[in-house]
């Protein structure tokens, strides 16, 4: 099992979710985060002075997947999240040892 974690632009969330649903992903978890990277933050004007805000609002999604789905999920996320502009974000994948569905106690692939 894999865990796919992606940091994307907030307004791409719906598109990404649709793309994942299309390939059979049934659940995911979303967190609002702030990113720091090549994409610059913005400036805010405040009473005659400009201030720079370094962090950019992003959305992090986490999806637990069977190994087979993982590859396609990476592609799906990349395609749906892409705008072609700096700050589109990253996809990370790592190995999961276990997964449990709390309600039923089912584990691993069945838990997803």
């Amino acid at each position, binding site marked *: 099992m894999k865990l796919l974690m992606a940091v994307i632009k907030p307004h791409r969330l719906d598109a990404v979710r649709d793309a994942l649903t299309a390939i059979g992903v049934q659940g995911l978890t979303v967190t609002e985060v702030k990113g720091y990277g090549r994409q610059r933050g913005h400036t*805010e*004007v*405040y*009473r*005659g*002075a*400009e*201030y720079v*805000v370094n962090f950019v609002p992003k959305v992090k999604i986490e999806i637990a997947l069977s190994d087979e789905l993982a590859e396609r999920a990476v592609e799906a996320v990349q395609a749906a999240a892409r705008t072609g502009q700096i700050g589109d974000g990253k996809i990370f994948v790592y190995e999961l040892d276990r997964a449990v569905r709390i309600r039923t106690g089912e584990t691993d692939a069945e838990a997803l």
Partner: protein
Amino acid sequence: MRTRELWLTVLLAAAADPAWAADAAALNGADTAWLLTATALVLFMTMPGLALFYGGLVRMRHVLSVLMHCLAIASVVSLAWLAVGYSLAFTADQSGLGLIGGLERAFLSEVARDTLKGTVPESLFFMFQLTFAVITPALIVGAYPERIRFSAVLVVSLLWLLVVYVPVCHWVWGGGWLAKLGVIDFAGGIVVHTTAGVSALVLAGLLGPRRGFPREVRPPHSPGLTVLGAGMLWVGWFGFNGGSALTADGNAAMAITVTHIAASAGAIAWAAMEWLRFGRPSVVGTATGLIAGLATITPAAGAVGPAAAIAIGLLAGLLCQVMTTLVKQQWRIDDTLDVFAVHGVGGILGSLLTGLFAALVLGGVGYAEGQNMLGQLGVQALGVGVVALWSALATFFCAKAAAALGGLRAPEEAEIEGLDLVAHGERGYDLR
């Protein structure tokens, strides 16, 4: 200041029964109705108006402390005003020097329900003035948020009320020496805004800047609150300036007219300049320009016409914006919410412009007999200068006293974790 209607009643009544007449001459129900309203409006300016205006501008973790400062000042100053403030400000100086009044009215003694002051109940005049005494030290809250000790807020505000506000109020509005010189300060360009603005600058300097100032300060945590507060201040200012006529007539009406026009012009000027300088106007800036316009028209509201109000508002918006940058970026004084740049500069500018725009040819009400524009400008400058100086000196003393009594500045931990939690055991938002 009396309405003509009343004059008439008096004339007719005088014939009938002299005893009645004196009484009838005195209470004007319409003036009373309006001043009751105006009093509510000015209280509304401080609580919740100013509290929110300032509260929206600070970091989230200090928002409640700012509200607490305003609320505490409103409560404590009210009792002090009742105890001695009003009496010292508005009774005659026995010495004849016009420096400070006496204690005859301490705790409103001898003031019954039917005691009058002019055409309104004296208790009402007391309350109207109380709301001014409350908002003036509350304006200074903007100088020291995010880092002051709560006990220092109390000590400084109370001392300041007694050594700055009360005497200056006596000088200008209580028949004191500046009043005798003929200074014009309709609703508080000198008494309120100059005193508060200058004192804020001194206090901010003595307290030192916030951690990270000026490079790493954060933008306002909730500009919406600030706009909400600004709207309340705008509306409340109708009571502030309109009520200062003390009558429900054309003086009050023209006062709110020029007040409103100057506010609008101030907002437009500030926004336009931001648009030019930064490519876009901000709502915090626009609201600040609005307040600058309001502060600046305050001394002039009884003396100038609508065209002058446009000029006053535009100048206010431009100059106050320049001053915010100057104070923070050049002078490096962390007058955090720009009390000096907006209220101090506005009050001073307005008090001087009053000397100018009161001229009949400029649409104003003209000067007192024997006075001309130059003379009036001189008097205005003298009044502003002396009051600014006195405010600075006396504030220095207040701050030192507070430093001795428990300290001025909150511990660094409170600044980092937030005054809300450390000084008041609360958090501004619990969003879950």
